[in-house]
Structure formats: C-alpha cells, structure tokens
C-alpha cells in the first residue's frame, strides 16, 4: 500500500444508504464524504436520527437488514471495503477497524473473563500463541490504565466499574492494533469525572499509536475536548465539516450556529437560551431544497428550491446557500 502519514486511512465518497420498506425506499444517508488521517480524531455530531451512528455502521459493514449501501464507496488504507462479502468483512472488523460502543456492559460477554475475551481477539487476528496472547492482554490492560492488570485479567466484566469496563472495551478495540477505531458515544453512559478520564485516554492512545478515530457523539463538550476535526450531520447529510476550532467558534452553517448557541455556557448567565424551533424532519419527509430550511432563520427562496452542496468555507466546508452564492 505504501501510504504516507498524511494520506487518509479512511476515505468515504458520496455514500448513500437506503432502507427499502413497504411504503417505498427511505434514504437514511446521502452524499456523505469524509476522510480520516492516521492519528486524527474526527468528531461526528448531530441530533438523534441525523445519521451519525448509521455512517459508523455502514463503514463497518454492520447495516441491519434491509439497509444497504446504494451508492458511493468506502476505502480503508486505499482498499475498497464497501463491496466485500461477510467473510472478508469479518477479517477486517477487529483487525483493521476497532469498535467502541456506548454501553460497556452490553459490549462485553458477561460469561467470559476479560482476559479470555482479549485473548480470543488477539489470537484470532494476530495468530499468536496462548502465552503470548495473554502477555499482550495484560500489556493492553496496562495501556488503558487498569491498575494491577495481572490480577484483573482473570476477572469477569461485572467485577469492573463502568469506567473500568469502558477501558476494557477500548483495550479490546485496540487488541489487534487496527488502523481505524469507530467510537460510538463512548462516554454517554459514564459520569462526568469518568468521561474526562476516558476522553483523555482515547486521545493519548490515538496519538501514540497513530490510529484514526471516528468519534460519534451528540455531546459538543466531548467534541471540543477530543476531536481534531468535526463533521456535523443533519437529516442524513453532512452539512458542515472542518477543523474543530473553526466549527465550534465560527460555525458557517446556520444549524451549527443554532446548535452552538443552544448550549448553556458557563460564561455569562442568560435569562433565555437560544433555541432552534421545531425538530429535525423524519427521514421519509425531508423537505425539498435544504433539509434545514423550515427551521432556519435566514432561509430564502432558493433554500426551498435547490439543495446546497458542500462548498469550501475557511479551512472547512459547509452546505448552505449563504456561503455559496446567496439565498435569493
């Protein structure tokens, strides 16, 4: 493959995901395009149902039936993976793509010790012997900051606290040194003080091991602390993507602006929070033009007719007519 460090590990190009149903085909994702480079954390934010988790699942080939990738391509380290069969995908998942899910209790098997689960993954993907796999399991637990890993490797998931379990899940995701980790709301089920621990751990490991991370979350605070770049999704589309400082401090898209303004800040106290009226449209009832136009305070006639494409703004991109030739 011979890629240089600056070449993206993950490349997604105009990805479209559909769910055929009795009442016709629902398009869950359209035109999603993103890159993640080694050692980079891309935060993906949006409201529930915006398609952020769906993007992660599509990349891992885990779309639930009858969902399917209708268009576009996904490349991992230059190799196309969206058209692989299940057997080939199984080799990639765990080996090249690690996954961290929201609830650490359900992503671990309660009937096996933490060590057995780590060893299984290590032996499966790296072909190591039993003793070597165990050593690596202990080393991994050490890496993710579990105290006295040699004793804890033989304990069951229920003997760990929530934060420690999430550390074990991170160890599992890292077990085969994957190129990409997809972390779907990894801190949502945790308390604030534990959240900070897990985020800084994830950030440290990603930088050390030069792993690309796709961090899916609805929490702007997590994004601010962890991500290098941010992708904002709305109604199944990417509406803004760019460096974290730019997207959070000077958002270009009115939705991102509204989202940032609606978060209660710790600075000056206000009587009333800014709110975005209305709610995100259902995927089977997306309005024509820009999907955000019914809730947008700066929408013009063009916004209800034509859909804006992502266009460069500063160091990022935004899909809004305000940035691409006006709303009239």
């Amino acid at each position, binding site marked *: 493959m011979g890629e240089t460090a600056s070449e993206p590990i993950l490349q997604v190009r105009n990805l479209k995901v559909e769910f055929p149903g009795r009442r016709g085909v629902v398009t869950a994702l359209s035109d999603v395009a993103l890159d993640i480079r080694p050692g980079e954390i891309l935060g993906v934010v949006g*409201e*529930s149902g915006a398609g952020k988790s769906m993007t992660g699942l599509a990349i891992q080939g885990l779309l639930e039936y009858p969902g399917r990738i209708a268009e576009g391509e996904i490349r991992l380290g230059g190799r196309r993976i969206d058209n692989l069969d299940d057997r080939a995908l199984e080799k990639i998942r765990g080996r090249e793509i690690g996954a961290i899910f929201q609830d650490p209790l359900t992503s671990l098997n309660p009937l096996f010790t933490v060590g057995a689960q780590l060893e299984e993954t290590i032996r499966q993907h790296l072909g190591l012997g039993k003793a070597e796999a165990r050593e690596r399991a202990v080393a991994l637990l050490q890496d993710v900051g579990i105290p006295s890993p040699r004793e804890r490797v033989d304990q069951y998931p229920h003997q760990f*606290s*929530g*934060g*420690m379990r999430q550390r074990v899940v991170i160890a599992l995701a890292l077990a085969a040194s994957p190129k990409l980790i997809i972390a779907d709301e990894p801190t949502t089920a945790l*308390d*604030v*003080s*534990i*959240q*900070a*621990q897990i985020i*800084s751990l994830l*950030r440290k490991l990603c930088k050390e091991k030069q792993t690309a991370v796709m961090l899916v979350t*609805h*929490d*702007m*605070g*997590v994004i*601010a*602390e*962890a991500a290098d770049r941010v992708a904002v999704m709305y109604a199944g589309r990417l509406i803004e993507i760019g460096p*974290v400082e730019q997207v*959070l*401090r000077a958002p270009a898209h009115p939705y991102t602006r*509204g*989202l*940032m303004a*609606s*978060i*209660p*800040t*710790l*600075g000056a*106290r*206000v*009587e*009333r*929070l*800014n*709110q*975005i*009226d209305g*709610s*995100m449209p259902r995927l089977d009832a997306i309005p024509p033009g820009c999907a955000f136009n019914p809730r947008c305070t700066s929408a013009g006639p063009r916004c209800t007719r034509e859909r804006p494409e992502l266009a460069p703004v500063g160091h990022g991109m935004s899909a809004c007519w305000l940035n691409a030739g006006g709303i009239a």
Partner: protein
Amino acid sequence: MTTTKTKPALTVEHLVKTFDVSAPWLNRVMEGKPRQLLQAVNDISFAVPAGGCLSLVGESGCGKSTVARLVTGLHKSDSGEIRFAPGRSGAPLSAQMIFQDPYASLNPRWRVKNIIAEPLRELKLRKTAAEIGDRVEELLLTVGLSPSDGEKFPHEFSGGQRQRISIARALASEPEFLVCDEPTSALDVSVQAQVLNLMRRLQDEFGLTYLFISHDMSVVRHMSDRIAVMYLGRIVEEGDTETIFADPRHPYTQLLLQTIPNIEEPNRDRVVVPGEVPSPLKPPSGCTFHPRCPLATARCSAEVPAVRTLSSNTRVACHLVEDVPVPA
C-alpha cells in the same frame, strides 16, 4: 439551617433512606451472608426557596433521584422530615414530578389527551367531559403543542415534544411545586434548550418552585438559584449558584466544575482526576470523598466532617474548610 431571603417552599431535615439489598433469605442462611443495607440518602437537609429552583447535582449513585422520590412520596423515608409550606389554598403545596425518560413515562397505548386528563379525572378536578376537554386543550397550548395533538399517540412525537406532554400532565393538577428528575438528559441539545426555556417560562407564569435534578453542570447553572452537590448520599456543599461556580469550597465540587468540557476553550491537556465513585454498599470511612481527594489528611479518613455554614451562606462538609476561620 439555611437562611434564605424568601420563605422556603420545601424544607427537608435530616432525611435518611436505607434500602435493604440483602441476598434472599435462603442464601443468607445457607451461605452465611449477612444482611446488606445501602444507605442511599444519609442525613440530608436543604430548603427550596419559594418560586425558586434548587438543583441537586452529583454522579450516578449519589442518591439524588432517591431524594426526588422521597420528596414526592414515591419512597417512604426512614427518618427525617419533609415539610411543604402552605400553598395558595392554605393546604401544603402540591408536588408533581417530571421524569427523565419521556419514552418510558408515557403510556404508549393512550391518546395524549387521555394521558393529560388522567390527573384531572383521578383527582376529580373537573366535572364534565367538556370541562376536561377544555382544560386539556389549554394545557397543550401552554406547553406549545396544538389542541389537535391530543388525538395522537405518544409514538407520533419526538423526544422534546414528549417531554412537553409530560410537563402538561404534571401541570394538570395545578401544582405549585415540580420535581424534575433529569428532564432533559434524554434530549438533544437544540431540543434541550426548547424544554429548558419552556420550564423557565412556566416558572414565571405560574410561580412554580422547582427541585431540579441533573448531572449536567451547565444546565444546572442555567436553571437554578441554589445548588446542592451530593456525594454518596450526603450533601457536601450547598449554596447560591453563582457563589458555588465562582468559589467552590469542597474539593469534590471543584473536581465536578473542572471536568466540565468548555466548548469555547477546550482544555485538551487537562490533568484528569483519577479514581471513581466508590460503591455505596461499602462507603469509605470518615469523609466518603477522602480516597479521591487530593487534599485528604489522616483526619479525613477517620472523622465524618460536620456541615459548616460559611459567611457566603454556603454550607460545606469538609475538614479543610472547617479550619478556615469564618469572618463575622
């Protein structure tokens, strides 16, 4: 006791609640296991100023939801006192509760109008069906829904709209006191702002008093006049919102405030405080926070700190704060 300028609407004194979480009788006899008690709420006192909002904050398992349930009478306390001040009618204030998960707190098989009318029918607040219908319409309008929404079922609404329905139901019996147990933690940020704004408006319109429960410090800052920070069943610090945010005295409050991600100025290289909340089944001796406290001394592990009232009208339970002389 707290001396607030306004008369308290709710006074809670020395509240204690212990849950029996022992193994079944047979296991206790055969395996020689002792009874196991969980001290969920341990000698808590606070007062909620009339027309104001007191927030209970803390991490999961600290007992904040138990306090909410004790106040509304869903649990019976072991000892201590819960006193509501006389309301408009002269009888003690009536309290209602808004729950965290709007997906679980509304009966999926009932139409919204029946959900909202249930308290009216149950408490015989309106006589005829027409009167009930009028009142339901009025309530729907109050929370920003349309009267025609009454014919729909809960699944036809988004999370934010469902939370509006539970607020309408809570308001049906014209309560003067609302206990809100994490009302926005299941919602997206843009919708959270809508619900928080609605709650503030209702507070002004109906003179409601809130007992607000949350783990989100920025939401708490926005909503409350006073804050009580809980740790393992005890209040470790209680005071005016601005005082607590400007000058947190208890090391745990300082930790909580430190871990809030700042969206405007992300702190990527923060020093993460290690450690986790201990199990409430085996609380540490002395000050329960001492194993995590960076300032802990030998005294902290031996002696439970007494609650001290400071000149700023803040109450703190910490030995180190005790040593500072209180200016008169």
